[in-house]
């Protein structure tokens, strides 16, 4: 039997728009959900997805992918990779699963919105597959960590992080709610698939896979790089929507959405991916620095894709390029110092050899963040542990929900960017965070940061203990130094040598 070439029938098969007769077009596609930008159905029918896939092909390919990922897991199950892993690497896994796994189901919901409400038939087709992809990501990233829960209570956060008020999860939810849970179908395609997935997911799912392969964790490397093969397809949902918007005079609106989503993604990755790549991953297994991965995936690859689509670089690009060498060092310092408030054990990552590496990758590190670490190191070596733990909360940004920080020491530039809106004073960590708020103040104005909640008396008692209870962190789950301060021995020995000398 002769079989038609796929391209002979593909366009026809997914031409599923019709003219509604029982309801109006606005009832079929409510503007608030469809986000048609004032364009009628037939304008969206020009949407042509570049990465084409049919349902039968999808099922076969996904079956092959799953067979690969699950068989690697099964084959390596008895090799005790988790038990024998460096504690810093275990923290990488805990941070990853907690911050990501359940968010995949939220992404499935966002894909479902495009699937139902987009006026573009091609987008509806691709996001049907995208929705199934995200369910796969949720299932796998809950199944893979599950075997470790009985060995380590913190692994339970793979399942429950999204249900807690942990500060890092408030930040993650605030970002994902903004770009994918509270936006119309077209905006989701721009903010989630184009801005977030063509760029940033590569950092967490391929950059980190490179580190995982170096660390010998092939189960994890294989899992996350397999997930990224789904991303690379459904990340293409946004591109054709951008082309239609640009052709129809909507470039400014499209650009604004890209600029908002890219900035939020950057901030989230500076606290999640930056520290795990440059501090938690054992030195000998670091494939590249966080900055080098960012340059590879975001600056070289994503920025090039962005301009090829006919968009401009985000207006803050120079600020972003400068922050690539700075922000995540502050995020690491903060999350290490406030380590009881996270569900993993941060690795300090500041032995003399690691500091040499940091200085090489980030010239000036010792004169800036290094100075803060000198104080922490002295306190640990002196046994002044009370000084090495926090008593209060840091000030956080009303946009990214992350600590307001800057470069300390000789590069001092710590600054608050305030804004008064309808009688309430908001604080932002950067000019860009404040700009995002100003684009649509009503969208964000009602949100209370963890510090706002603290000051409003919602967190009782008003101390660290009350804060931990509020964040749903049980004793036995709260973070402490990944290596139980063993790294301080080098500094103790150095001090002894100096005294003797």
């Amino acid at each position: 039997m002769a079989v038609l070439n796929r391209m002979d029938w593909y366009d026809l098969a997914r031409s599923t728009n019709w003219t509604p007769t029982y309801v109006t077009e606005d009832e079929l596609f409510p503007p608030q959900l469809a986000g048609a930008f004032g364009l009628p159905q037939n304008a969206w029918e020009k949407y042509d997805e570049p990465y084409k896939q049919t349902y039968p092909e999808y099922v076969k390919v996904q079956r092959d992918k799953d067979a690969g990922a699950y068989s690697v897991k099964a084959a390596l199950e008895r090799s005790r990779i988790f038990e024998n892993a460096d504690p810093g690497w275990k923290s990488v896994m805990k941070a990853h699963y907690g911050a990501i796994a359940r968010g995949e189901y939220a992404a499935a919901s966002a894909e479902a919105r495009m699937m139902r409400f987009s006026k573009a038939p091609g987008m509806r087709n691709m996001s049907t597959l995208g929705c199934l992809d995200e369910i796969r990501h949720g299932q796998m990233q809950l199944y893979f960590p599950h075997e470790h829960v009985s060995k380590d209570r913190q692994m339970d956060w793979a399942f429950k992080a999204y249900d807690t008020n942990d500060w890092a999860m408030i930040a993650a939810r605030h970002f994902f709610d903004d770009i994918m849970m509270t936006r119309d179908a077209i905006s989701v395609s721009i903010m989630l698939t184009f801005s977030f997935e063509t760029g940033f997911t590569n950092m967490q799912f391929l950059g980190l896979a490179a580190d995982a392969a170096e660390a010998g964790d092939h189960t994890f490397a294989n899992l996350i790089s397999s997930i990224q093969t789904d991303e690379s397809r459904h990340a293409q949902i946004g591109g054709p929507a951008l082309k239609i918007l640009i052709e129809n005079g909507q470039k400014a609106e499209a650009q604004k959405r890209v600029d908002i989503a890219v900035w939020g993604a950057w901030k989230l990755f500076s606290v999640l991916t930056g520290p795990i790549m440059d501090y938690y991953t054992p030195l000998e297994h670091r494939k590249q620095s966080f900055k080098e991965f960012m340059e590879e995936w975001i600056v070289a690859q994503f920025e090039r894709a962005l301009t090829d689509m006919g968009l401009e670089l985000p207006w803050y690009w120079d600020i972003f390029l400068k922050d690539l060498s700075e922000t995540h060092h502050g995020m690491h310092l903060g999350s290490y110092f406030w380590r009881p408030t996270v569900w993993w054990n941060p690795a300090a990552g500041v032995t003399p050899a690691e500091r040499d590496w940091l200085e090489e990758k980030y010239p000036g590190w010792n004169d800036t963040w290094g100075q803060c670490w000198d104080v922490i190191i002295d306190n640990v070596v002196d046994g002044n542990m009370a000084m090495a733990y926090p008593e209060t909360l840091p000030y956080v940004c009303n946009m990214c929900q992350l600590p307001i920080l800057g470069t300390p020491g000789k590069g001092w530039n710590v600054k608050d960017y305030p804004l008064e809106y309808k009688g309430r004073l908001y604080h932002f960590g950067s000019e860009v965070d404040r700009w995002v708020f100003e684009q649509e103040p009503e969208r964000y104005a009602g949100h209370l940061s963890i510090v706002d909640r603290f000051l409003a008396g919602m967190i009782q008692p008003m101390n660290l203990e009350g804060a931990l209870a509020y964040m749903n962190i049980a004793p036995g789950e709260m973070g402490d130094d990944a290596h139980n301060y063993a790294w301080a021995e080098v500094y103790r020995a150095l001090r002894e040598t100096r005294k003797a000398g």
Partner: protein
Amino acid sequence: MSTASSAQAYHNNMVGPVMRAGDLALAVIEAARIDNPGKEVFVEDKRAYIRIHTEHEMILRRETIEEELGRPFRMNDLEVDLSSFAGQIESLDGAVRFYFAKKL
């Protein structure tokens, strides 16, 4: 231009797949050479993933990959190990094309 830094260079024109390591990636490297005559193929191995790039445009044909693999291969099977790619993508019958619309 060194192979190691080609795809990381700021404002480069490199396009092509980023494959998970494995026999499919090796077949794609060979196919990139065969299907893009006269073009230099840049290969950058990061262990968990391999960048396979050429300047500005790359075509990969189903038959070529199938021949290099030595087993039946459908164009969409590429997705099993296609983790990412540089440039825009175009799905064709029996081929896939990576390209940039604008040259820098």
